[in-house]
């Protein structure tokens, strides 16, 4: 009966798919132009006027999103508040929470309490910038007592802490305290003050570990969201760079920052990202990988649809293309959406070296991706199905090498590929000092011994080694994973049907890739579907010819730079004077 249920589920039909589709719509002008019929091919030229810029939102507007359902407001009396919070923090049991009572030197004295988590705060900061001013230095008007104005004054004038917030509900207090702030509660007042005293340990900013470049900036993100956003801001010093914080997770509120350029990123894209990020009803988000799985479009695809990077320069360059960055607290990887397949094959280094080298790097990488997926499969197919196409000498030496190998080719290949995966996995897990040893043992001794023991043929070692090398030439770690996994599928297909199997696999894989979307953008854009030719997909054109942002992102401002970005080539200095900068703007429209 189970089988029947399964079959009816697998083969049956229950109406058209209901899942909500998000597609990044073309702009109105493009639609209008298309309706007019006056287009070239199916691409709309970018020669349309700039979109009028919308006024950036006021920063305060986005703040009121999070806490709405709370009713637990702070009480008026201090003891009640302390009681409530002590209960919330499980106080007798929880040794980390500190309630430090003190009195503020007013007349009459006002008792107050400091609330913080022992190891999350910088004690120097509490001593110097909270306790000291409040206990000793405050020259409050002695007769004012505990009224609202007093606290207003404390907030305004007596807390030399850089970031002070007014809190009115318990949940806010809890969030702030667990976030490392120090909360001051006063007797006779229904709000508290949170002062920034974060002082927990985190890694310093170091060179990026997983995406290394030879030339170009070296710094990478660390686990602190503030540092990470600041690193991004350091690259993009513009007032248009928006950082919106969202708290994600039901039990544990993880800080997530969504960053984008207000005058570039498509509004509906930003909206979609925000709705996906905030729409997660989950317990706990430890880092960006978990969030990625929650918000990505196709969980079962072998290829990632969100790019993760630990390089601020890469984030900056993608933000300026019009993408949206998602920074998760406690994780040095920043996610960027939408992502296309081509992004996964790009490395920031392509742009940091000169055009010919960058051009060459891209081709090496493309070849590496193809080799990773196809080389072992091609070997299996050629050796067992299409012997006629191997040069006779090579065929004979393959046959001779296999003379004493007891296994069929497919078993040999699987054996070696599997041990390669083992070496890789062991190399990652093994404690740092032994790591290189595993590599050497794996590659040299295992390969050598396997050949000597007639377990595999020597040619196969070359195939596996080249495949392994190529898989590490792919800049995106998770794409490398996906491709390495795909390699096994292709090996099976090749062992079943030879080249026919491989091309069947390729066809299905490509069609699945083609039908994928990443945040409303077709995964293989701008190649298929064809949109405006982009100067940076497989071939990286010279930087000065990359005049437009990717069309598929539907950015608010398509032009990256004017068509003649090198002004000295077009006009002599004297002529430039009368043309002026206004001329450059006009030229931009005409071209």
């Amino acid at each position: 009966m189970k089988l029947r249920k399964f079959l009816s589920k697998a083969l049956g039909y229950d109406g058209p798919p209901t899942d909500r589709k998000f597609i990044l719509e073309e702009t109105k002008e493009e639609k209008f132009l298309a309706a007019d019929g006056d287009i070239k091919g199916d691409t709309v030229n970018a020669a349309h006027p700039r979109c009028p810029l919308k006024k950036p939102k006021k920063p305060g507007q986005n703040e009121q999103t999070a806490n709405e359902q709370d009713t637990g407001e702070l009480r008026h009396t201090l003891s009640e508040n302390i009681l409530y919070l002590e209960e919330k923090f499980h106080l007798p049991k929880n040794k980390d929470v500190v309630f430090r009572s003190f009195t503020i030197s007013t007349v009459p004295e006002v008792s107050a309490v400091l609330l913080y988590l022992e190891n999350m705060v910088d004690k120097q900061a509490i001593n110097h910038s909270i306790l000291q001013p409040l206990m000793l230095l405050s020259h409050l008007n002695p007769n004012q007592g505990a009224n609202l104005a007093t606290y207003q004054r404390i907030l305004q004038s007596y807390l030399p802490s850089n970031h002070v917030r007014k809190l009115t509900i318990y949940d806010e207090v809890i969030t702030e305290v667990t976030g490392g702030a120090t909360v001051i509660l006063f007797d006779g007042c229904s709000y508290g003050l949170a002062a920034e005293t974060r002082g927990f340990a985190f890694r310093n900013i170091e060179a990026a570990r997983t995406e290394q470049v030879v030339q170009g900036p070296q710094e990478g993100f660390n686990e602190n969201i503030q540092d990470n956003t600041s690193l991004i801001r350091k690259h993009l010093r513009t007032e248009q760079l928006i950082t919106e914080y969202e708290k994600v997770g039901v039990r544990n509120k993880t800080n997530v920052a969504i960053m984008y350029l207000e005058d570039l990123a498509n509004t509906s894209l930003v909206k979609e990202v925000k709705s996906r990020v905030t729409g997660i009803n989950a317990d706990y988000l430890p880092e960006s990988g978990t969030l990625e799985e929650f918000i990505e479009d196709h969980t079962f695809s072998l290829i990632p649809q969100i790019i993760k990077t630990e390089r601020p320069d890469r984030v900056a360059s993608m933000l300026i293309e019009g993408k949206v960055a998602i920074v998760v607290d406690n994780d040095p990887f920043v996610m960027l959406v939408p992502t296309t397949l081509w992004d996964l094959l790009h490395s920031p280094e392509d742009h940091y070296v000169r055009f010919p080298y960058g051009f060459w790097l891209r081709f090496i990488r493309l070849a590496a991706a193809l080799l990773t997926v196809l080389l072992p499969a091609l070997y299996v197919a050629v050796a067992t199905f299409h012997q006629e196409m191997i040069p006779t000498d090579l065929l004979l030496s393959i046959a001779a090498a296999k003379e004493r190998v007891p296994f069929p080719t497919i078993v040999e290949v699987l054996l070696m590929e599997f041990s390669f995966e083992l070496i890789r996995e062991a190399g990652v897990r093994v404690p740092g000092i032994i790591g290189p040893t595993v590599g050497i043992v794996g590659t040299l001794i295992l390969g050598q011994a396997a050949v000597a023991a007639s377990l595999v043929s020597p040619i196969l070692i070359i195939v596996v080694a080249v495949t392994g090398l190529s898989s590490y030439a792919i800049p995106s770690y998770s794409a490398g994973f996906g491709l390495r996994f795909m390699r096994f599928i292709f090996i099976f297909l090749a062992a079943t049907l030879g080249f026919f199997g491989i091309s069947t696999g390729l066809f299905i894989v490509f069609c699945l890739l083609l039908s994928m979307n990443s945040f409303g953008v077709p995964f293989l854009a701008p190649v298929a579907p064809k949109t405006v030719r982009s100067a940076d997909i497989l071939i990286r054109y010279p930087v000065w010819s990359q005049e437009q942002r990717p069309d598929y992102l539907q950015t608010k401002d398509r032009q990256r730079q004017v068509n003649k970005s090198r002004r000295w080539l077009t006009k002599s200095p004297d002529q430039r004077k009368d043309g002026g900068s206004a001329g450059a703007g006009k030229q931009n429209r005409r071209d």
Partner: protein
Amino acid sequence: MQENKIGETEAIVLLTTIMTGKIFLTFPNTMVGYGGNASWLIILFSGCLALILFSFILRFLNKFGGNSFPESAENIAGPYLGTMIVLAVLLPWLIDVAMTLRKFSEMMVIIALPETPISVMVITFIVASAIVAYLGVNTISRAAYLSFPLSLGAVLFIIILTYPAWNLDWLFPLLGKGLDPILRYGILRSSDYGELNLLYAIPLIFYSQQIKRIGYKSIVLTMLIFLVVIITYLLTFPAVVGEEPYLPLYMMARGVYLGRFLQRIEAVFVLFWVINGYLWISIGIYGFCKILCDLLRLPDYRPLILPTAILILAISFIPASLPDVVLFSIYTYREYSFILIFGIPALLLLIAHLRGKGVPAENEAK
């Protein structure tokens, strides 16, 4: 439906890909069989004819492009006749897909897997194509757009590698089997552009100008590819020998000899040829399901894919042998299908004119 909006270039490439799919099969040797050394003239002639015949499709689409094909057929000719007309498109379509499926599978048996049962090939083909048909015309057209330069490159690569074997004298006598077969088969073989019926049968959203460009460009492109293939085929093999093989392009690839290290590379081209076959069959399945779905007023075509695939699978096994398939589909279907393909829009236009049904008002507004 938003789903059916594909780009103009993609449409051109899709049509060209599926129309030129024949060159991997028996097309070149059939043409040489018809016209001998002058078979390239047949192609030139049939191509020009197709350009003229396409105007029926164009006019039909200009007038009734707003609706799906079964809708407009029923609007024009009434429910009974209209359904008959749609069936007249559907049934040959089904048989054509089944035969092409069989031919591509047989091709794989000849080229690469001589000892594998044909059923394995056919099933693999239909399963993969059905999966892709499920993904929709958008995906198929994008896949065509991606693979087109590759398969075209592969074909040109074979052609160029056979250069050492070229002999200009094989093109003579210039008129081959004479003018009579050139004209006769030139007309009959305009069926080679029969896949143009995709344009009116599947509701793809285009603007009228685009359809004109898509049609003419894809016909001309297809004709050029046909011409290049046939002419180089004639240069490589004398006409008498050229009539012989099942798979001319495969024979050409076999002849490639680039020194001791590069020979017998035909298996490499399997990679590209197969993808062409897959595109053909998946658009065939998709088209069939889509028309049927429109005819039956269903909301979604996808549930029809599995039964259609099984039906096609069954039909493809009917012919007993490869020669039977070739004889049927080449010498029967491909010689007369042009009457249906170009005739149906013409017929509908005629009926509409007689009945005085002009352009629907909403369509004009578009």
